[in-house]
C-alpha cells in the first residue's frame, strides 16, 4: 500500500473536501464561460428562425433574422400574429414599426441591451448574487443545447434557466422562474437555422407604405410633472446598482440592476389617473403601487421590475421625501 493511504482519516477528508471544492469551482468557471460565450453569440451568430414568447396569458411568436458581417449587425423581428409590427436594427440604430403609432425610433431608448457584451466583471457580478449551474443538456428546435441555471442566493430575486446552443452559445430558450420554481416568462426558438446565407432583403421592411398610415408617433414619456422635493430610496436588495435611465426626467424615475434583473421606481405627483394600490404581476414583471403624502401633495410610488412582489413592496415602502437625494434621486 502506498504512503498516501497511511495518512489519517481527517487528512483524507480534507483532501476530499478540497477536490470537491475544486470541482465546484471548475463548474462555476464553466458556467461563467458559457455566459461569456452567450454574450458574444448574441452579437456574432448568423441565424434565422421563429421564436415563441409567453408571458402570463399572452403567447406570441416572432420571425427573426440576425446577421453579423464585416463588423455590422443587422436584425429584423416580425411579429407573426395579431397586429402587423416589426423591429429592425442596424448596429445601434433600432426602428420599430407598429400600425398604431407609426414608426418609432428606439435607438436612444434601448442603448445597450441588444449589443452588450458579457465581460468578466459582468459574469462575476452575476455569480455573486446567483448560483450558476450546468443542468444537463437538451434539444431545442433541433439543436443540442446546454442548460444553464441561475438560482438567486437570496429571496429578493427571481431565478433563470438558459438554454444555449452547444456550438455557438446562442441563447435558444430562457425562463424566468418564481421563488417556488414556477416559470413566469418564457422565450424559445421553435425553428432555428444557423446559416451565413442571409441576404439583405431579409432585413428590409416589406410594408413601408403601411407604417405611414398611422397617426404620428406619440410621445411615450410618462407625463410626470416636476417634483417639489427630493426623495430617497431607503432600501433595495444588495447588489443592485443605479442604471442609466435614457428616458424620463431625473428625480422622477430611477432604475437599478444587479447585472441580470432590473427594476424601476417612478414617482408621480398628483397622478391624473387614480390607480389601485398593491401588487400585480404580468409574467415575470411585478408592478407595485403605493400612495405617499408629502408637502400636502399626493404622490404615486410605482415599482416595476423582474423581482418578487415582496421585494417590490419593500422597495416602494422605503421611499421617503424630505432628505437630500440619495441613490434614487440621482440615478
Amino acid at each position, binding site marked *: 500500500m502506498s504512503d498516501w493511504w497511511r495518512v489519517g482519516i481527517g487528512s483524507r477528508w480534507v483532501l476530499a473536501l478540497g477536490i470537491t471544492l475544486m470541482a465546484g469551482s471548475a463548474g462555476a468557471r464553466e458556467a461563467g464561460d458559457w455566459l461569456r460565450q452567450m*454574450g458574444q453569440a*448574441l452579437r456574432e451568430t448568423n441565424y434565422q428562425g421563429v*421564436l*415563441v*414568447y*409567453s*408571458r*402570463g*396569458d*399572452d403567447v*406570441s*411568436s*416572432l420571425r427573426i433574422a*440576425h446577421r453579423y458581417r464585416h463588423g455590422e449587425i443587422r*436584425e429584423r*423581428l416580425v411579429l*407573426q*400574429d*395579431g*397586429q402587423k409590427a416589426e*423591429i429592425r436594427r442596424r448596429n445601434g440604430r433600432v426602428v420599430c414599426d407598429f400600425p*398604431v403609432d407609426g414608426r*418609432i425610433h428606439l435607438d436612444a431608448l*434601448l442603448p*445597450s*441591451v441588444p449589443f452588450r457584451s*458579457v465581460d468578466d466583471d459582468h459574469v462575476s457580478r*452575476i455569480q455573486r448574487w446567483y448560483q450558476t449551474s450546468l443542468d444537463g443538456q437538451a434539444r431545442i428546435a433541433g439543436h443540442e443545447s446546454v442548460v444553464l441555471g441561475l438560482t438567486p442566493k437570496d429571496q429578493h430575486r427571481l431565478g433563470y434557466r438558459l438554454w444555449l446552443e452547444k456550438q455557438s452559445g446562442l*441563447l435558444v430558450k*430562457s425562463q424566468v422562474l418564481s421563488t417556488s420554481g*414556477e416559470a*413566469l416568462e418564457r*422565450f424559445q426558438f*421553435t425553428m432555428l437555422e444557423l446559416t451565413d446565407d442571409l441576404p439583405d432583403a431579409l432585413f428590409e421592411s416589406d410594408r413601408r407604405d403601411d407604417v405611414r398610415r398611422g397617426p404620428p408617433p406619440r410621445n*411615450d414619456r410618462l407625463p410626470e410633472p416636476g417634483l417639489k422635493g427630493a426623495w430617497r430610496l431607503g432600501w433595495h436588495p444588495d447588489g443592485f446598482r443605479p*442604471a442609466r435611465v435614457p*428616458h424620463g426626467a431625473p428625480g422622477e*424615475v430611477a*432604475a437599478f*440592476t444587479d*447585472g*441580470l*434583473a*432590473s427594476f*424601476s421606481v417612478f414617482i408621480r405627483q398628483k397622478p391624473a*389617473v387614480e*390607480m*389601485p*394600490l*398593491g*401588487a*400585480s*404581476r*404580468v*409574467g415575470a*414583471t411585478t408592478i407595485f403601487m403605493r400612495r405617499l403624502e408629502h408637502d400636502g401633495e399626493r404622490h404615486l410610488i*410605482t415599482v*416595476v421590475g423582474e423581482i418578487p*412582489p415582496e421585494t417590490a*413592496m419593500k422597495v416602494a415602502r422605503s421611499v421617503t421625501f424630505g432628505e437630500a437625494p440619495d441613490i434614487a434621486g440621482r440615478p
Partner: protein
Amino acid sequence: MRDTMDDRLRETLSAMMDDEADELAVHRLLSSAQSEEAQERWRRWHQQREILRHGRSDFSSVDVRAGVNAALDGQAAPDDAGGDRNVVGAGESTRPTGVWPWVASLAVAVVIGFGAGFTWTSPSALGGATTATAASTVENTVPSVTLEDLEDEQRAQLNRYLLEHARNGDALGQGAFGYARVASVSAGR
C-alpha cells in the same frame, strides 16, 4: 341496410343531443360497431350546437396557455381536475421519448391558440390568468391588485410603466429576446 343503420345512429344521437334518448338506445349505440363513427359525429354535432347556442366551440375551452407553456417547459400541463377544460398537448408532453408528439402538441396549441384570438399583446395581456398568477403568487402580506378589474385608462397607465421600465432595463443582454418584452408592451398600447 347501411341507410337503416345510419338513420338509427342519427336518431339516437339526435335524441341524446336533446337529452331524450332512452338508456337502452344509448347502450346499443355505444356497443355497436359504429361507436367510433358515433363518437365522431357526436363530437361534431356537439361542437356545432355549442357554436349555435353560445357562439363558441369546444375549442374555446381548450387551455391553450397551459398547453403551450407545458410544451415549452417540456412537462405536463397542470390538470384542471375541477372542470371540463381540455389541455392541449398535456398527454403528449409527458411521454419521455416523444419528440414528435411534443412538436405536434406545441404546433397544435399555437395554431389553435392564435386562431382562437391570441394576438400580439391582446388588450387582455394585463388581465386574465395574470390576475390568477398575482393572486396565487403574491403573499397575503402583499396587497394584490386584480388587473382584470382595471379601467381602460388605468390599464393604459400600467402599460406605460411597463414600457418605460423595459426601456430602462439594463439587464443581461438577451439579443432578440430582450426586444420581445418591449415589443409586447408597445404593440399592445
